[in-house]
């Protein structure tokens, strides 16, 4: 009997060991995720319950908010929990992932994805974009639910559940990702070193008040609201400050509908498009890779606006000087170096009137 028990114990230990290897080799080989992987590993590295403000959104979002600036100037700890091309369908899962380790006082949900209709349905079969959404997460039930939600074809799901199948052959092995937890000095912020060409800067027309979001997206918005409500913290929905142009942007009308819809639901909406002048956005030079992405100078402006808003409305505690947050202070030097580098590179582009360094 004792021998049998020992045998079973041995088998269990062996299987656990094999499972551990499978899991962590998966993390070590994950690659080709653009900014997403680094954002997520950084989030997992944050100490539990130390982030006051979690900012959820897509690439537009992680280019707009610089958490280290919020720390340096307001003493607020925040993190951009974002992935490239985050689907509308995937946002609720980011909230679930956040709530596993953090209990933020404020959650900022950036609605850029809803402005350009970034749904799983519209990107069906686009493996790369789907992986931006799924492969940043640690393996968990939440990740499985996310995959089940955004990958329509059941036969295709296994390759997302077991993403080692995708990465191991061509991806680089990064042992520093073994635990999928690696401190990110930018706290999820990514500077996009581009300057969107000046072009036309005519103020957009009034938003069309008759515009209505497609029903499936309204449903997704409802699910997002429901999930955010369950988080039990203050929730701010933000509309990003997109660029004016003569072009007839559907995003403009979408923003109008979403804002009204959320306000009717009694939610707090921060429409940064409408306060672009207060933020100090320069229509000629402040946009980055496109009309809804930002570089370091515009990010500094948007972040400071958010900082003031948070300070005035939510009176968040200033943690500077608190020993519990020493690691944030320690990250400052690296952040300063990064920031200086971004500023130099972007300024050079502005000076020569170029779009990108390449």
């Amino acid at each position, binding site marked *: 009997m004792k021998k049998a028990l*020992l*045998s079973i114990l*041995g*088998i269990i*230990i*062996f299987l656990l*060991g*094999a499972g551990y*290897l*499978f899991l962590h*080799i998966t993390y070590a*080989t994950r690659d080709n995720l653009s900014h997403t992987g680094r954002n997520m590993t950084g989030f997992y590295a944050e100490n539990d319950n130390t982030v006051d403000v979690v900012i959820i959104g897509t690439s537009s979002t992680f280019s707009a908010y610089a958490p280290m600036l919020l720390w340096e100037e307001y003493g607020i700890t925040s993190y951009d929990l974002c992935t490239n091309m985050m689907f509308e369908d995937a946002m609720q899962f980011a909230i679930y992932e956040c709530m596993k380790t953090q209990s933020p006082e404020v959650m900022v949900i950036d609605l850029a994805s809803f402005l350009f209709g970034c749904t799983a349905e519209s990107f069906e079969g686009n493996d790369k974009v789907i992986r931006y959404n799924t492969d940043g997460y640690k393996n968990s039930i939440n990740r499985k639910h996310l995959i089940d939600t955004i990958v329509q074809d059941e036969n295709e799901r*296994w*390759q997302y559940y077991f993403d*080692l*199948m*995708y990465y*191991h*052959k*061509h991806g680089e*092995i990064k042992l520093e990702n073994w635990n999928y937890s690696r401190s990110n000095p930018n706290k999820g912020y990514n500077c996009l070193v581009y300057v969107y060409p000046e072009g036309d800067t005519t103020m957009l027309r009034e938003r069309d008040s008759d515009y209505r979001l497609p029903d499936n997206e309204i449903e997704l918005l409802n699910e997002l609201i429901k999930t955010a409500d369950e988080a039990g913290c203050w929730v701010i929905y933000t509309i990003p400050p997109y660029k004016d142009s003569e072009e007839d942007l559907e995003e403009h009308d979408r923003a109008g509908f979403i804002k009204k819809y959320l306000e009717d639901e009694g939610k707090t909406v921060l429409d940064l498009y409408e306060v672009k002048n207060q933020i100090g956005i320069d229509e000629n030079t402040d946009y980055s890779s496109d009309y809804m992405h930002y570089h370091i100078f515009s990010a500094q402006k948007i972040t400071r606006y958010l900082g003031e808003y948070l300070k005035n409305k939510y009176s968040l505690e200033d943690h500077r000087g608190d020993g519990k947050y020493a690691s944030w202070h320690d990250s400052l030097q690296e952040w300063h170096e990064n920031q200086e580098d971004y500023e130099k590179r972007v300024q050079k582009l502005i000076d020569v009137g170029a779009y990108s360094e390449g």
Partner: protein
Amino acid sequence: MSFVSIEFALFLIITLCIYYVCPKKLRSFILLAASYYFYIQSDLVYAIIPFVMTGVIYLSGFLMEKYQDRKKVILVVSVVLCCLTLVLFKYSSFIFSKIGMGSLFENLILPVGISFFTFRSIGYLIDTYNNPKNREHNYISLSLFVCFFPMLLEGPIEKAKSFLPQIKEMNHRRLFSFETLFDGAALMIFGYFVKMVIADRVTIFSDYVFDDFYNQGSIMLVLGALAYSIQIYTDFLAYTMIALGIAKIMGINLTDNFNTPYFSRSIKDFWGRWHISLSTWLKDYIYIPLGGSRKGKMRTYVNLMITFIISGIWHGSGMRYILWGLMHGVYQVIGRLTGPPKDRITHKLKWKVDSFGYKLLQTVITFILVTISWILFRVQSVSDFFRFIKGIFERPDFARVSEYGIYCEGFEKRDFWILITGILILFIVSILRYKKSMRIEELLKKQPCVFRMLILLAFIALILLFGEYGLGTFTHPFVYIQF
């Protein structure tokens, strides 16, 4: 269903679970059902062939036992029936193409594993003929002998007298133990390592050379031949280890097909170490019945040639397989003819035949001879073989190789170093096998439990990191399945 697939992993787990929990009496039935399910996944219609062949050999055994005075006729008829089945599916297209009627059989697909289960069946018939009392009375056990799924596709060509008693025993004894599970798992994991890290990686390179050998230079052709030699060995070794491992977990010991064949010091030695179950079969059922070496030198040479030509034909239809058999027959005959003069020369020159240098020289020569013969397996025709050999001497490419390297799509510098490391690991394991005559699981058994587990986990890690699998990767079918 390939051994290297998610489907097979699920199939195996489910089969093992059912096998372990079902009543003892049902075990052979479970394995038979699983074996036929496994075969049907490869070929639904052709599953009838092993089924019918089992019927034929069962009936023949019964008749041989009952009518012992006519057992020779029964044996001849049943062996001819088995051989005809093999000829129909494997050789008819080739034979009839020679008389301009090849189109009659062009739609016939070669049923997987037919060469293996046909030879197993013939072996059983001859054993029963020699001793009719040994015939198997249990139809399920005999069916399992013909198509037990781990050995269905690539053998080993098990003998009834070693396999069937284990099936009987299996239905009575306690099967599950940590030791058998560990031994089986060790064999399987090492098999998967050899297949996925070495064989499938070296295949990319050998395919690159052979698929375009007309345009390859000398160095690339030599490296291609070397790569194929490594491929065919590691691929077949891997299959065998996985098959042995699966069977071991089920409490069945199969015959090992390999014993470090590339360390052989002569072709004779090689055939005692390569595809051992086939060489044993050929020796027991062809070479010895022909008279072996008991009827004089000339007859021995003839017997050797016949045996190896049959071995070549067994591997496939086409002149290149016959030539391959002839080559090995000639190697053997020359080896015997030159043996005594060689001994005299070495004695006169006072060469130390037991020295490492001399042994290494013998091993290298044997390896080169074997490698040359493998080229016949990879090219499409005998004329291609000669073109390949000619190319080695006619197209120097040192400058090209030194400028562009040997890499190709799917086989880059990283792959080269992974391959070299994999081969080095296999080499170390083989050295241990050669010196201590113990397989990897036997070597590990002597180590503390924790160390054993760590070694296996390390191999799992190597497979996960460096194996050829996953999206965008073509999993190469096992080479010997085509035979």
